[in-house]
Protein backbone atom coordinates (compact mmCIF):
# COMPACT_ATOMS: atom_id res chain seq x y z
CA UNK A 1 0.00 0.00 0.00
CA UNK A 2 2.76 2.47 0.92
CA UNK A 3 4.53 1.89 -2.38
CA UNK A 4 1.29 2.52 -4.26
CA UNK A 5 0.70 5.71 -2.26
CA UNK A 6 4.19 6.99 -3.13
CA UNK A 7 3.68 6.13 -6.80
CA UNK A 8 0.30 7.90 -6.80
CA UNK A 9 1.78 11.06 -5.30
CA UNK A 10 4.24 11.29 -8.17
CA UNK A 11 1.53 10.63 -10.72
CA UNK A 12 -0.79 13.24 -9.19
CA UNK A 13 1.97 15.86 -9.21
CA UNK A 14 2.70 15.09 -12.85
CA UNK A 15 -0.88 14.83 -14.10
CA UNK A 16 -2.01 18.00 -12.30
CA UNK A 17 1.18 20.01 -12.96
CA UNK A 18 1.74 20.71 -9.28
CA UNK A 19 5.23 21.99 -10.02
CA UNK A 20 5.76 23.61 -6.63
CA UNK A 21 4.65 20.59 -4.60
CA UNK A 22 7.06 17.86 -3.45
CA UNK A 23 5.80 14.30 -2.85
CA UNK A 24 6.77 14.42 0.83
CA UNK A 25 4.56 17.49 1.27
CA UNK A 26 1.46 15.49 0.42
CA UNK A 27 -0.02 13.83 3.50
CA UNK A 28 -1.73 10.66 2.27
CA UNK A 29 -4.59 11.20 4.73
CA UNK A 30 -5.19 14.92 4.10
CA UNK A 31 -8.11 15.97 1.92
CA UNK A 32 -7.06 16.40 -1.74
CA UNK A 33 -9.67 19.10 -2.34
CA UNK A 34 -10.53 22.22 -0.42
CA UNK A 35 -7.52 23.69 1.33
CA UNK A 36 -4.07 22.21 0.91
CA UNK A 37 -3.21 21.44 -2.70
CA UNK A 38 -5.70 23.97 -4.04
CA UNK A 39 -7.24 21.52 -6.50
CA UNK A 40 -10.32 22.51 -8.51
CA UNK A 41 -13.05 20.95 -10.66
CA UNK A 42 -10.73 20.44 -13.65
CA UNK A 43 -8.27 18.61 -11.39
CA UNK A 44 -11.06 16.29 -10.27
CA UNK A 45 -11.69 15.37 -13.90
CA UNK A 46 -7.95 14.96 -14.48
CA UNK A 47 -7.78 12.44 -11.64
CA UNK A 48 -10.37 10.38 -13.52
CA UNK A 49 -8.10 10.52 -16.59
CA UNK A 50 -5.15 9.48 -14.37
CA UNK A 51 -6.95 6.36 -13.11
CA UNK A 52 -7.90 5.36 -16.65
CA UNK A 53 -4.48 6.07 -18.15
CA UNK A 54 -2.31 4.44 -15.47
CA UNK A 55 -4.60 1.81 -13.97
CA UNK A 56 -7.18 1.06 -16.66
CA UNK A 57 -10.00 2.03 -14.28
CA UNK A 58 -12.97 3.79 -15.83
CA UNK A 59 -15.13 5.91 -13.53
CA UNK A 60 -18.42 6.29 -15.36
CA UNK A 61 -20.15 8.53 -12.83
CA UNK A 62 -17.91 11.44 -11.78
CA UNK A 63 -19.99 11.71 -8.58
CA UNK A 64 -18.18 8.55 -7.41
CA UNK A 65 -15.00 10.64 -7.54
CA UNK A 66 -16.12 12.46 -4.39
CA UNK A 67 -15.46 9.40 -2.21
CA UNK A 68 -12.58 7.95 -4.24
CA UNK A 69 -10.61 11.20 -4.35
CA UNK A 70 -10.94 12.16 -0.68
CA UNK A 71 -7.25 11.54 -0.08
CA UNK A 72 -4.30 9.79 -1.66
CA UNK A 73 -5.00 6.85 0.66
CA UNK A 74 -8.64 6.48 -0.42
CA UNK A 75 -7.45 6.58 -4.03
CA UNK A 76 -4.91 3.84 -3.33
CA UNK A 77 -7.52 1.76 -1.52
CA UNK A 78 -9.91 2.12 -4.44
CA UNK A 79 -7.23 1.01 -6.92
CA UNK A 80 -6.48 -2.03 -4.71
CA UNK A 81 -10.19 -2.85 -4.43
CA UNK A 82 -10.38 -2.88 -8.23
CA UNK A 83 -7.51 -5.36 -8.29
CA UNK A 84 -5.51 -2.96 -10.48
CA UNK A 85 -2.39 -2.19 -8.44
Amino acid sequence: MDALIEKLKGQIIEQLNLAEVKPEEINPDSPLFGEGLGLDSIDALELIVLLEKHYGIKIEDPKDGKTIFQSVRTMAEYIKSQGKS
Partner: protein
Amino acid sequence: MKHITSYAHIKHRRLTANGSLIFDGSSSGSLPEFLTDAYRAQGMSYPKYHKMDTLCKLGMLCMEAAVKESGMLTEYPLDKIAIVLANAASSMDTDRVHQASISDKAAYFPSPAVFVYTLPNIVIGEIAIKYKITGENAFFVSECFDAGLLLNYLEALFHGETQAAVCGWVEADGDAAEAFIFLVEKSNKSSNFKPLNQEAITELYNQ
Protein backbone atom coordinates in the same frame (compact mmCIF):
# COMPACT_ATOMS: atom_id res chain seq x y z
CA MET B 1 -6.72 62.08 -23.23
CA LYS B 2 -5.73 58.42 -23.06
CA HIS B 3 -2.18 57.31 -22.40
CA ILE B 4 -0.11 54.17 -22.61
CA THR B 5 1.23 54.04 -19.07
CA SER B 6 3.24 50.82 -19.02
CA TYR B 7 4.23 47.99 -21.33
CA ALA B 8 6.16 44.73 -21.39
CA HIS B 9 7.59 42.39 -24.02
CA ILE B 10 8.64 38.81 -24.40
CA LYS B 11 10.74 38.49 -27.52
CA HIS B 12 13.56 36.09 -28.32
CA ARG B 13 13.23 34.67 -24.79
CA ARG B 14 13.86 38.02 -23.16
CA LEU B 15 11.34 39.59 -20.80
CA THR B 16 11.47 43.37 -20.62
CA ALA B 17 9.26 46.02 -19.03
CA ASN B 18 9.20 49.64 -20.17
CA GLY B 19 12.45 49.04 -22.01
CA SER B 20 14.33 47.50 -19.06
CA LEU B 21 15.47 43.91 -19.00
CA ILE B 22 13.78 41.74 -16.36
CA PHE B 23 14.97 38.31 -17.41
CA ASP B 24 17.21 37.11 -20.22
CA GLY B 25 16.85 33.47 -21.23
CA SER B 26 18.03 33.98 -24.79
CA SER B 27 21.31 32.13 -24.56
CA SER B 28 20.17 28.89 -23.03
CA GLY B 29 17.39 26.47 -22.43
CA SER B 30 14.09 25.44 -23.94
CA LEU B 31 10.89 27.44 -24.07
CA PRO B 32 9.37 25.63 -21.04
CA GLU B 33 12.54 26.38 -19.06
CA PHE B 34 12.35 30.02 -20.05
CA LEU B 35 8.71 30.17 -18.94
CA THR B 36 9.58 28.73 -15.52
CA ASP B 37 12.76 30.80 -15.05
CA ALA B 38 11.08 34.07 -16.01
CA TYR B 39 8.27 33.28 -13.54
CA ARG B 40 10.83 32.79 -10.76
CA ALA B 41 12.84 35.86 -11.82
CA GLN B 42 9.72 37.97 -11.26
CA GLY B 43 9.23 36.52 -7.79
CA MET B 44 5.75 35.35 -8.68
CA SER B 45 3.97 32.99 -6.34
CA TYR B 46 0.97 31.61 -8.18
CA PRO B 47 0.92 27.79 -8.31
CA LYS B 48 -1.88 27.81 -10.92
CA TYR B 49 0.68 29.22 -13.36
CA HIS B 50 2.24 25.79 -13.80
CA LYS B 51 -1.07 24.36 -15.01
CA MET B 52 -1.35 26.87 -17.82
CA ASP B 53 -0.45 26.37 -21.46
CA THR B 54 2.31 28.37 -23.17
CA LEU B 55 -0.06 31.05 -24.44
CA CYS B 56 -1.38 31.78 -20.96
CA LYS B 57 2.07 31.68 -19.38
CA LEU B 58 3.34 34.25 -21.88
CA GLY B 59 0.36 36.48 -21.17
CA MET B 60 0.74 36.15 -17.40
CA LEU B 61 4.47 36.89 -17.42
CA CYS B 62 4.04 39.98 -19.57
CA MET B 63 1.02 41.23 -17.62
CA GLU B 64 2.87 40.85 -14.32
CA ALA B 65 5.85 42.78 -15.70
CA ALA B 66 3.69 45.57 -17.13
CA VAL B 67 1.39 45.96 -14.15
CA LYS B 68 4.17 45.91 -11.55
CA GLU B 69 5.32 49.34 -12.67
CA SER B 70 1.81 50.74 -12.85
CA GLY B 71 -0.81 51.94 -10.42
CA MET B 72 -3.65 50.95 -12.74
CA LEU B 73 -5.10 48.22 -10.56
CA THR B 74 -5.53 50.53 -7.58
CA GLU B 75 -6.43 53.73 -9.42
CA TYR B 76 -9.36 52.37 -11.43
CA PRO B 77 -12.38 50.27 -10.46
CA LEU B 78 -11.58 46.72 -11.56
CA ASP B 79 -14.93 46.45 -13.35
CA LYS B 80 -13.97 49.40 -15.56
CA ILE B 81 -10.76 47.78 -16.82
CA ALA B 82 -11.03 46.00 -20.18
CA ILE B 83 -8.82 43.21 -21.49
CA VAL B 84 -8.33 43.14 -25.27
CA LEU B 85 -5.84 40.69 -26.71
CA ALA B 86 -5.02 39.30 -30.13
CA ASN B 87 -2.77 36.85 -31.93
CA ALA B 88 -2.37 34.95 -35.20
CA ALA B 89 -2.40 31.29 -34.17
CA SER B 90 -5.38 31.38 -31.81
CA SER B 91 -4.86 28.37 -29.51
CA MET B 92 -3.16 26.24 -32.19
CA ASP B 93 -0.28 25.29 -29.90
CA THR B 94 -2.63 23.53 -27.48
CA ASP B 95 -5.05 22.44 -30.25
CA ARG B 96 -2.24 20.18 -31.50
CA VAL B 97 -1.78 18.66 -28.04
CA HIS B 98 -5.49 17.89 -27.70
CA GLN B 99 -5.64 16.51 -31.25
CA ALA B 100 -2.66 14.24 -30.49
CA SER B 101 -4.47 12.89 -27.41
CA ILE B 102 -7.36 11.66 -29.56
CA SER B 103 -5.57 10.58 -32.72
CA ASP B 104 -4.59 7.14 -31.39
CA LYS B 105 -7.67 5.06 -30.62
CA ALA B 106 -5.55 2.70 -28.50
CA ALA B 107 -4.27 5.55 -26.31
CA TYR B 108 -7.32 7.81 -26.31
CA PHE B 109 -6.97 10.13 -23.32
CA PRO B 110 -8.45 13.56 -24.00
CA SER B 111 -7.62 15.71 -21.00
CA PRO B 112 -9.96 18.40 -19.66
CA ALA B 113 -6.94 20.34 -18.38
CA VAL B 114 -5.63 20.50 -21.96
CA PHE B 115 -8.98 20.98 -23.71
CA VAL B 116 -9.89 24.05 -21.67
CA TYR B 117 -6.87 25.83 -23.18
CA THR B 118 -8.03 25.21 -26.76
CA LEU B 119 -9.70 28.63 -26.68
CA PRO B 120 -7.49 31.71 -27.10
CA ASN B 121 -9.51 33.87 -24.70
CA ILE B 122 -8.56 31.65 -21.77
CA VAL B 123 -5.49 33.89 -21.41
CA ILE B 124 -7.91 36.79 -20.84
CA GLY B 125 -9.68 34.67 -18.22
CA GLU B 126 -6.42 33.82 -16.45
CA ILE B 127 -5.37 37.47 -16.31
CA ALA B 128 -8.88 38.43 -15.11
CA ILE B 129 -8.72 35.85 -12.31
CA LYS B 130 -5.22 36.71 -11.09
CA TYR B 131 -5.76 40.48 -11.06
CA LYS B 132 -9.54 40.40 -10.35
CA ILE B 133 -10.31 42.46 -13.45
CA THR B 134 -13.95 42.14 -14.54
CA GLY B 135 -14.43 44.66 -17.36
CA GLU B 136 -14.93 44.19 -21.10
CA ASN B 137 -13.26 41.25 -22.91
CA ALA B 138 -12.35 40.64 -26.53
CA PHE B 139 -9.94 38.29 -28.28
CA PHE B 140 -9.15 38.99 -31.95
CA VAL B 141 -7.25 36.77 -34.34
CA SER B 142 -5.35 38.46 -37.16
CA GLU B 143 -2.50 37.49 -39.46
CA CYS B 144 -0.04 39.86 -37.79
CA PHE B 145 -0.04 42.51 -35.08
CA ASP B 146 -2.73 45.01 -36.07
CA ALA B 147 -2.26 48.25 -34.15
CA GLY B 148 -5.13 49.86 -36.07
CA LEU B 149 -7.64 47.21 -35.04
CA LEU B 150 -6.64 47.34 -31.39
CA LEU B 151 -6.68 51.13 -31.34
CA ASN B 152 -10.10 51.26 -33.02
CA TYR B 153 -11.56 48.87 -30.52
CA LEU B 154 -9.95 50.59 -27.52
CA GLU B 155 -11.36 53.93 -28.69
CA ALA B 156 -14.81 52.33 -28.96
CA LEU B 157 -14.53 50.86 -25.45
CA PHE B 158 -13.39 54.14 -23.92
CA HIS B 159 -16.59 55.73 -25.28
CA GLY B 160 -18.47 53.45 -22.90
CA GLU B 161 -17.85 52.27 -19.35
CA THR B 162 -14.17 51.45 -19.84
CA GLN B 163 -11.64 53.66 -18.02
CA ALA B 164 -8.48 51.58 -18.43
CA ALA B 165 -7.37 48.61 -20.50
CA VAL B 166 -4.93 45.74 -20.72
CA CYS B 167 -4.17 45.32 -24.40
CA GLY B 168 -1.73 43.45 -26.58
CA TRP B 169 -0.52 40.49 -28.57
CA VAL B 170 0.16 37.02 -27.16
CA GLU B 171 1.34 34.39 -29.61
CA ALA B 172 2.38 30.77 -29.05
CA ASP B 173 2.91 28.39 -31.96
CA GLY B 174 5.52 25.69 -31.47
CA ASP B 175 8.83 27.41 -30.81
CA ALA B 176 7.46 30.80 -31.77
CA ALA B 177 6.61 32.58 -28.56
CA GLU B 178 6.02 36.27 -28.26
CA ALA B 179 4.04 38.64 -26.10
CA PHE B 180 3.48 42.36 -25.89
CA ILE B 181 1.17 43.88 -23.30
CA PHE B 182 0.47 47.55 -22.87
CA LEU B 183 -1.72 49.32 -20.33
CA VAL B 184 -3.95 52.20 -21.33
CA GLU B 185 -5.49 54.67 -18.91
CA LYS B 186 -8.12 57.35 -19.41
CA SER B 187 -7.11 60.09 -17.03
CA ASN B 188 -7.08 63.84 -16.96
CA LYS B 189 -3.83 64.05 -15.05
CA SER B 190 -1.02 65.67 -16.96
CA SER B 191 1.37 62.92 -17.79
CA ASN B 192 4.73 62.11 -19.23
CA PHE B 193 3.31 58.99 -20.80
CA LYS B 194 2.79 58.37 -24.47
CA PRO B 195 -0.62 59.45 -25.78
CA LEU B 196 -2.60 56.53 -27.21
CA ASN B 197 -2.37 56.50 -30.99
CA GLN B 198 -1.44 54.07 -33.73
CA GLU B 199 2.14 55.31 -34.09
CA ALA B 200 2.79 54.92 -30.37
CA ILE B 201 1.39 51.39 -30.28
CA THR B 202 3.38 50.39 -33.36
CA GLU B 203 6.57 51.96 -32.05
CA LEU B 204 6.30 50.17 -28.71
CA TYR B 205 5.43 46.86 -30.36
CA ASN B 206 8.54 47.09 -32.53
CA GLN B 207 10.86 47.91 -29.62
